[in-house]
């Protein structure tokens, strides 16, 4: 599903990723853990195609296609979903309008029929219910006045609506109380646990992994994967700290 080879990337001329190699097969959930400054968010943004993040070496294929040959919106249409650590506010644009236009833009790109207003609202309500979110909130402007937890729940509702093949979730667990954490974990399992789907879960803490059990855990340090293992590696990190494990 996702194959990253020897990836090097810079931000504002500073090298952040230094030869990262990682493969996420279909049907698997992989967690990337690492200390602050290891390059976790940079990896998410590079995969999403954010301007200002420059790839200097290496390759990434997504579902067999060259990821860097695609614009950010084309990556979304190809089935990639990027969950933001800090979801962006868009005053004046309702969530419903934002998501309907986004989804229909994806559908046009694929040559599929667009959703009507009624069909879309039905889909949005169903997905909001899965995440325990009041569908009325989707009438409000995108993320404006949402609490930290509401923003992250809304990210998961968006993921449910987009129904991606690959989700890259950047610190989706940060700033969540325990109820929101459970809801988000439930959402990830519900939406993404499937043989043809994959998740790259980027996180600083082990606690989300109590709700979403990863198939593999990787430790990122100074822009490289320094260790990989099964779910037990997350426990070891929690116990002993990054300094021990990544040394």
């Amino acid at each position, binding site marked *: 599903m996702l194959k990253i080879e020897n990836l090097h990337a810079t931000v504002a001329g500073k090298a952040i990723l230094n030869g990262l190699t990682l493969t996420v097969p279909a049907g698997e959930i992989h967690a990337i853990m690492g200390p602050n400054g290891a390059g976790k968010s940079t990896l998410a943004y590079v995969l999403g195609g954010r301007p200002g993040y420059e790839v200097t070496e290496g390759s990434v294929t997504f579902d067999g296609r060259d990821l860097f040959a695609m614009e950010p919106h084309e990556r979304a249409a190809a089935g990639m979903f990027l969950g933001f650590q800090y*979801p962006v506010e868009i005053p004046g644009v309702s969530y419903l309008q934002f998501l309907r236009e986004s989804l229909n833009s994806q559908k046009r790109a694929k040559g599929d029929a667009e959703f009507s207003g009624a069909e879309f609202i039905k889909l949005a309500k169903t997905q909001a219910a899965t995440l325990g979110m009041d569908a009325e909130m989707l009438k409000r402007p995108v993320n404006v006045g949402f609490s930290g937890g509401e923003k992250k729940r809304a990210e998961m509702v968006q993921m449910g609506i987009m129904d991606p093949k690959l989700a890259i979730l950047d610190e989706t667990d940060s700033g969540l109380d325990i109820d929101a954490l459970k809801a988000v974990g439930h959402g990830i399992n519900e939406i993404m646990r499937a043989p043809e789907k994959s998740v790259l879960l980027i996180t600083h803490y082990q606690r989300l992994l109590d709700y979403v059990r990863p198939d593999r855990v990787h430790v990122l340090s100074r822009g490289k994967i320094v260790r990989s293992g099964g779910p037990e590696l997350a426990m070891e990190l929690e116990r002993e700290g990054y300094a021990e494990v990544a040394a």
Partner: protein
Amino acid sequence: MTALPTRKLEAFRYADIDALASVWPSLAPPVRVEIAAQQKLQQIWLPSGDDVDVRRFDVVLEAGASANFFALNTASRFGRIELDVTLHEGAEFEFDAANIGGGNSTLEVVTTVRHVEPNATSRQTVRSVLAGKAIGSYLGKVAVSRGADGTDSEQSVKAMLLARGATANAKPELEIYADDVKCAHGATVGELDREQLFYAAARGLDPAGARALLLEGFVGGLWDGIEGDDRGIADAARVALKAIA
């Protein structure tokens, strides 16, 4: 017919005088709108569709009257909306307008709001979205007469520039001869937010669609106060934005 104005006049400082000259001999006098005491009036002004489109209004609100005016300015060469408003005691005036243009268009909203008696309120909100070499201006004077205490006026002016060659001018002006007044004004000029553009792209919106949606959000709030279900101006604004996004 009075003489053609020149740019030396403050109210015509940014005007396209050549374009104005082309319609000046046939220009109708300002439309007079009088709203009787305690009456309410809503008007929605759509562009005429002409490439030079000059609209002028003299408005008087008697005591306790209220007016909600909504205007869209999109002429391809020169669009000018000129308002002279007089507010008597306790009158409420609200004006929401958008300048949307590209190419070489010059679009302007020029207002004078006179608070001549106490306790009147005026709210003006103007949003400009400018592409190409378009020039969008707001010149707004609020004059508060002696004794017009309790005046509450607000001018909110924001512009979004989509190209390096586009220009926005904002000039809120206050002339106050009363003591107990509240007159707020703010003006900003900006570009589309890169974080918002990337967020929209990450959800699958193509670049033109993302720009159009964000611009609609920037302008859209103007029409929230329209009573009834007349969405003609919102639709026309959306079409104008799509054309330059």
